């Protein structure tokens, strides 16, 4: 589903990835593990296309499952976004992810769980998610969800994550605690229903209860034969809830070690230094 080939990336003139090669198949969950503050920070932002994160070499090929076809049917481009006309990606099958705009990557089925979910004052969660979801649907040539349909979907997902509907009516992440923000990320993931989720240190700042809720959320939403998850974390604890099929150690901008779930335990026991040696 995701094929990353010799990816080099920089922020400013600082290299953050130096030849990352990785493939992730549908139905798998994979976990990347790296020591903190060794150039590993925020490299996940390369995939959704955050401005300032420049890929200097390599490729990222994304093959969305049939449920998320990346095709612009040309329907519904009569109104709304002005830049929609440029999105003439008549692509089926493989997508060169790096050639797409951030919103097109999202519509193709990529979801990034933020380590620090952003606060947007004045925009309610409900409005934000409805507009975002309908923009994705429009891009895929699907009909928009009505207000009622959307609220039903939102309620189901909020209930599943134990989030009060009232919180969904509040401005996006404003005044939310760290745990509530992460929970909200999971509610958003449930509503958007992506094919591929890259979760960037989703476990940071969570207490044990929140960790379990978030772990359950990842399993419920993303454990499916046509989906895949890439977890980026420094700790073992989220893996008590979300069992990875593969574990990779990322150090100095490339993968230094690959293994199964046992590698995570080994890392937790031995530390990075031992393994790097």
């Amino acid at each position, binding site marked *: 589903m995701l094929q990353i080939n010799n990816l080099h990336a920089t922020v400013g003139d600082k290299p953050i990835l130096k030849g990352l090669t990785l493939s992730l198949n549908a139905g798998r969950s994979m976990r990347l593990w790296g020591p903190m503050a060794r150039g590993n920070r925020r490299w996940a932002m390369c995939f*959704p*296309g*955050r*401005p300032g994160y420049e890929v200097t070499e390599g490729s990222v090929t994304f093959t969305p499952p049939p449920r998320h076809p990346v095709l612009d049917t040309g329907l519904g481009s009569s109104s*709304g*976004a*002005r*830049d*929609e006309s440029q999105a003439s990606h008549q692509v089926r099958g493989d997508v060169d992810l790096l050639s797409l*705009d*951030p*919103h097109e*990557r*999202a*519509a193709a089925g990529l*979801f*990034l769980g*933020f380590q620090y*979910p*952003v*606060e*947007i*004052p*004045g*925009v309610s969660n409900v*409005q*934000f*998610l409805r*507009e*975002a*979801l309908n*923009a*994705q649907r429009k*891009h895929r040539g699907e009909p928009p969800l009505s207000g009622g349909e959307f609220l039903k979907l939102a309620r189901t997902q909020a209930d599943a994550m134990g989030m009060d509907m009232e919180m969904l009516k509040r*401005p996006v992440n404003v005044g939310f605690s760290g745990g509530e923000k992460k929970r909200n990320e999971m509610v*958003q993931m449930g509503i*958007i229903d992506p094919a591929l989720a890259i979760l960037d240190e989703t476990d940071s700042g969570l207490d044990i209860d929140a960790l379990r809720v978030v772990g359950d959320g990842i399993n419920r939403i993303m454990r499916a034969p046509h989906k895949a998850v890439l977890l980026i974390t420094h700790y073992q604890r989220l893996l008590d809830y979300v069992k990875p099929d593969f574990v990779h150690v990322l150090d100095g901008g490339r993968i230094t070690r690959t293994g199964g779930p046992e590698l995570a335990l080994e890392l937790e026991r031995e530390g990075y230094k031992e393994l790097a040696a």
Partner: protein
Amino acid sequence: MISSLPTRRDEEWRYAPAEVLAGLKALPEAQQIAVEAGATHPVYKCVSTGAASKVDIQRYQIDIAEGARCEAFFLLTGGGYKRLDIDVTLAEGAHFELGAVGIGRGEEVTEIVTRLRHVAPNATSNQVMRGLAMDHATLTMIGRIDVAKDAQKTDAALGAKGLLLDRTATINAKPELEIYADDVKCAHGCAIGQLDEMALFYAQQRGLPMAEARNLLMQAFVAEAYDAIGDTQWRDHMTGYAESALRGTF
């Protein structure tokens, strides 16, 4: 009141274009609004001059009697030089609520100028100004609050925020407080910034194209000025007008 014509030496006019001031024959008469004791008076008004060459100066003289309220909401957009000039006098226990939005693009000049006179005790006021400037537009927000010696327990708040969407646009924001009473609350804040890049990216990652993400954030920014509108129908009207002004379809 100003008897002679204003010049740029007058603080409240210092950002006005010289050619507009030179062309002024007389200031238009101020609209008089007297709110009777205990009454509530709403004002909803959209100011748009239409043509780029036009000048539209709207002046209001508002007197709010004991315990009365005036709730005034404005949108300034489109055309040439627009100025909203409000002079308010608050009696004991009166309240003045202002929500004013200015949206400027092209070469437009937009000014929101208020002067509040807290002359008696226990009066309150809350002013929310939101200015958004694109292209070469200039937008000015000046809020002056005078609190007289007898106006103890005055509670006045003024928040002016500007959003610059292009490097070439200009926003001036200036709160002015003159306080002679010693037991008062006067909160004032000015902030001028850009759209939050992280919020824009977050919205794009969730699926919104750049143009829609920008629009969503701009709408949220201006909507703050209309939060205090109690009449939901009018609130929807005003936010709707502001949205079409943002899209350039007002």
